[in-house]
């Protein structure tokens, strides 16, 4: 089982002409965890990942994998697996041939090709030309390319984009499994809600600069006040009970949104008033709110 090594960005900057795409970015991605690399479209995520992979030369700073620059890795695809864009396939080549071309280039055993096709669920379509693939199938083939060398480090750019609900559920579990095996997993996304169920850590950038990094829970503390969703077969009674307890609330389609209280406290109010409760849970949107507050600073987008 390959083990992950840390990814390290040290003062990485990139200018395209007069445009500063990435400015002085420094952070570390640890093995054994899934790290979400988040930011709005155009924040510099893809450029940052391309600098890590030696495709774009940084204007300043360095990005290393286990202390080694990508282009100095002895067997790159067996050290780092990456999926950068869904369109990187020759339309006239089959999925199997696409993978075997790069297996040859990277000296990877050709037996890996059917294995990774099976892993991503493309075995049945392996001998079709990629030109006829759907976006979701291209995403899966991109992931198969990333897994080809059974690498300890995975770098995936927007891996959930274009997948169907079943695929999203599958990839979330799969990313968790890869991290549990000790690999380093870095995934980018412009939507926190897309990855919040699978990531341990978050690195958030906006306009090319770091705005936040830390465990996912760090967003909760800094985020807006938590809200509790509660509902009852008899909403009128529940609202009366909450009003009586001088609790502020809003009525939404999914239930009644209570601010400033823990679920237990809301449950106690309902119990004391003898109101039956049909649902009672904490609303997760606090994370998204604090994410948007961070990346929205200074009016990006």
């Amino acid at each position, binding site marked *: 089982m390959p083990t992950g090594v840390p990814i390290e960005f040290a003062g990485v900057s990139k200018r395209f002409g007069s445009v500063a795409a990435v400015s002085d970015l420094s952070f570390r991605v640890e093995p054994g965890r899934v790290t979400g690399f988040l930011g709005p479209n155009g924040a510099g995520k893809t450029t940052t990942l*391309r600098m890590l992979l030696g495709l774009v030369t940084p204007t300043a700073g360095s990005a290393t994998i286990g202390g080694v620059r990508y282009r100095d890795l002895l067997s790159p*695809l067996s050290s780092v697996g990456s999926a950068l864009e869904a369109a990187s396939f020759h339309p006239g080549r089959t999925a199997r041939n696409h993978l075997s071309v790069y297996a040859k280039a990277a000296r990877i055993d050709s037996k890996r090709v059917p294995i990774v096709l099976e892993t991503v669920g493309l075995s049945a379509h392996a001998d079709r030309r990629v030109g006829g693939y759907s976006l979701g199938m291209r995403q899966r083939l991109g992931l198969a390319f990333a897994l080809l060398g059974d690498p300890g480090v995975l770098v995936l750019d927007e891996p959930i984009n274009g997948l169907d609900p079943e695929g999203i559920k599958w990839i979330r579990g799969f990313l968790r499994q890869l991290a549990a095996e000790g690999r380093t997993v870095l995934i980018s996304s412009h939507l926190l809600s897309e990855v919040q169920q699978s990531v341990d850590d978050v690195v958030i950038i906006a306009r090319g600069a770091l705005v936040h990094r830390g465990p996912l829970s760090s967003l909760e503390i800094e985020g807006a006040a938590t809200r509790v969703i509660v509902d009852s077969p008899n909403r009128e009674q529940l609202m009366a009970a909450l009003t009586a307890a001088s609790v502020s609330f809003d009525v939404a389609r999914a239930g009644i949104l209570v601010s400033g209280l823990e679920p237990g406290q809301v449950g106690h109010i309902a119990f004391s008033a003898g109101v039956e409760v049909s649902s009672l849970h904490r609303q997760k949107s606090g994370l998204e709110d604090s994410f948007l507050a961070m990346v929205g600073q200074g009016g990006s987008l």
Partner: protein
Amino acid sequence: MNLFFPAFRAEVAKLLTTRIWWILAIILLVYIGFVSGGLGALFGFLSKSGDEQPQGAPPMEILAPMLYGSVSTFGYVFPVLLGALAVTSEYRHRMLTPTFLATPKRGMVLGAKSATLLIFGAIYGVVGVLASVGAGAGVLALFGLDTQLDNSDTWAMVGRAVLALALWAVIGVGLGALIPNQVAAIVVILAFTQFVEPTLRAVTMFAGWAASIGRFLPGAASDALVGAPSLFNTGAAGTGAEPFEWWQGGLLLAALALVLTVVGYFVSWKRDVT
């Protein structure tokens, strides 16, 4: 160096797993067969229709090598196109990302591509020779003319034609790196090989000083390498500059391939892949 052979194998696999290489090879086969057979039939017919040497037709002893050499005079555009497409499709289909992820040493990828195309160009040369010798000799035999297939000079020339097409494919790699836009590359190649170069060669034949420059044109160098009498040098005998020796022509083609590839490396190949 330990990544060169894997990169080379990958480049061979890239060509073999798409259709363009055999489509172009079939067109080459049919086209050269048609040209060689057609010209052979034309001159064969002329030679039988009168006792005199017909006006404008090449002398009989150079007819066979001229037909066999049509593989390079008319066919060299095919390996150039294949070489250019091998490079420009990497840009067009955004394949440079996976390519450079698998082989981060970019110069090695370009070197592997040139080596691959040298071999595929030689294969095109063999395919073209099958067409030019097959159709040409067949038609000559039909008219009872000398096929010169028992002459070792003929086979040496055929071998040099194969080398010429191999070098042209490598030139195509350099052109593709220099002009990464696939449509632009194809337009430039077709315009240059089908119009610009023939025009320049026709023009430079008329003056000695111009001819000494004209022999540096890539198509002229290619003809010098192959050494087959072509339509260009049969009509303009004695207008000055001696054509190059075959090895000089070969070196010129190789130098052109090298220069184009090195310039292309710096112009496009080593740039950021975004």
